[in-house]
């Protein structure tokens, strides 16, 4: 009788062990599937979102700075990096080629304060060698008021110079004699200074300190 009870207990233990090992195997399998789903979803989502995040901002590589101005010369050459190519694909821009010219962007003045539409600025000094240049004001969204009365752009052919060939442009909401541009109505704005047919865009040379116009802030309206 005792042997019989012992045998039953052994059988029950064995069955319990088999059930618990089956449950463990099922749990392991389910956990592995969960891990695979987790890895695939996290990998794809992370990879795609990080790619989209990278192409929404400004060009991450090839940035060249001179005074208050920033340019990306590689955009116009075959050395363009894959991120810049992807950004151009997203924003639809057609950059200037190295053989065409070079665009300099400024969103801050010489002291690195953001350009403020309520302030007066003086853009003065030398300009690098170029057949022509243009200077255009845009709001932070990239909008430009093309109306002549808006006075939001000028070119090297329209600029007045002093006896030494230097130019001075005043950016102000109030009228000024000489070269006068009016900042956009937005609180902040940006300037794009484009050199056309210039040796500066060649990869062998770069502008030295002082060879681009300086942007100095004057008085601000309260």
């Amino acid at each position, binding site marked *: 009788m005792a042997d019989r009870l012992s045998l039953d207990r052994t059988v029950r233990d064995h069955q319990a062990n088999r059930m618990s090992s089956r449950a463990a195997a099922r749990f392991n399998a389910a*956990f*592995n599937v969960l*891990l*695979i789903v*987790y*890895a*695939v979803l*996290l*990998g*794809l*989502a*992370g*990879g*795609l979102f*990080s*790619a989209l995040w*990278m*192409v929404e901002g400004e060009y991450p590589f090839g940035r060249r700075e001179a005074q208050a101005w920033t340019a990306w010369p590689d*955009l*116009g*050459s*075959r050395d*363009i990096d*894959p*991120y*810049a*190519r*992807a950004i*151009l*694909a*997203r*924003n*639809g*821009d*057609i*950059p*200037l*080629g*190295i*053989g*065409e*010219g070079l665009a300099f962007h400024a969103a801050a003045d010489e002291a690195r304060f953001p350009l403020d539409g309520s302030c007066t600025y003086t853009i003065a000094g030398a300009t690098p060698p170029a*057949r*022509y240049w*243009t200077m*255009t004001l*845009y709001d932070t969204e*990239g909008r*430009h008021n*093309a109306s002549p009365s808006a006075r*939001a*752009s000028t*070119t*090297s*052919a*329209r600029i007045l110079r002093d006896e030494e060939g230097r130019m001075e442009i005043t950016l102000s909401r109030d009228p000024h004699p000489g070269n006068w541009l009016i900042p956009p109505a937005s609180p902040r704005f940006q300037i*794009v200074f*484009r050199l*056309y*047919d210039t040796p500066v865009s060649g990869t062998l040379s770069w502008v030295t300190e002082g060879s681009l116009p300086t942007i100095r802030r004057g008085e601000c309206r309260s």
Partner: protein
Amino acid sequence: MSILARFALATICALVLGAIAHLAAILIMPWTSERHAAERLLMTTSADTAQLIAGPGVETWLPLPDPAVAVAACAYDLGEGPFRFTSRASGLMKSVAFHSRGSGIFFAVTDRAAIGGVLDIVVMTRAQRDLFDALQENDEDRSVLRVIAPEGEGFAVIRVLASLPSLTQRALQEAQDAGCTIEPLDDPA
């Protein structure tokens, strides 16, 4: 392997997969984005002259357009033959650039490169260049600039600067007058 170790392994796999997905997305974006300039210019492939896309008083999809510059473009497909781009040098500052999706700008010049008052540029594949060389037998026209394209499809952009407001209409007209034609090679074989 413990649960924690398996979770760590899955996270490492996710990071590797994420890096691959990130790079793949960046690399294929020029071919998949509908906002790419090449995609927007596809309709100009069959046009014989450049189509105005930006300029003084012209509505444009280009970001930060230069209001003093008339911009016109035409897309090309070298499948049927080399692409010929022509524009007259008139005294206004002009520049021409050739773009492809995978290589960006592969050639750009200004009107200073014009020979005999005309900017005459032929874009061709390497195979077409070889065939052209075989057909010409040293009779090559030296007034034409010949460029090897990295890809079979691309687009040309001409910019004409109106340095003064009075030159605006002329700049717009000259940008649109640029010729964009496909000129098949006559293969005797």
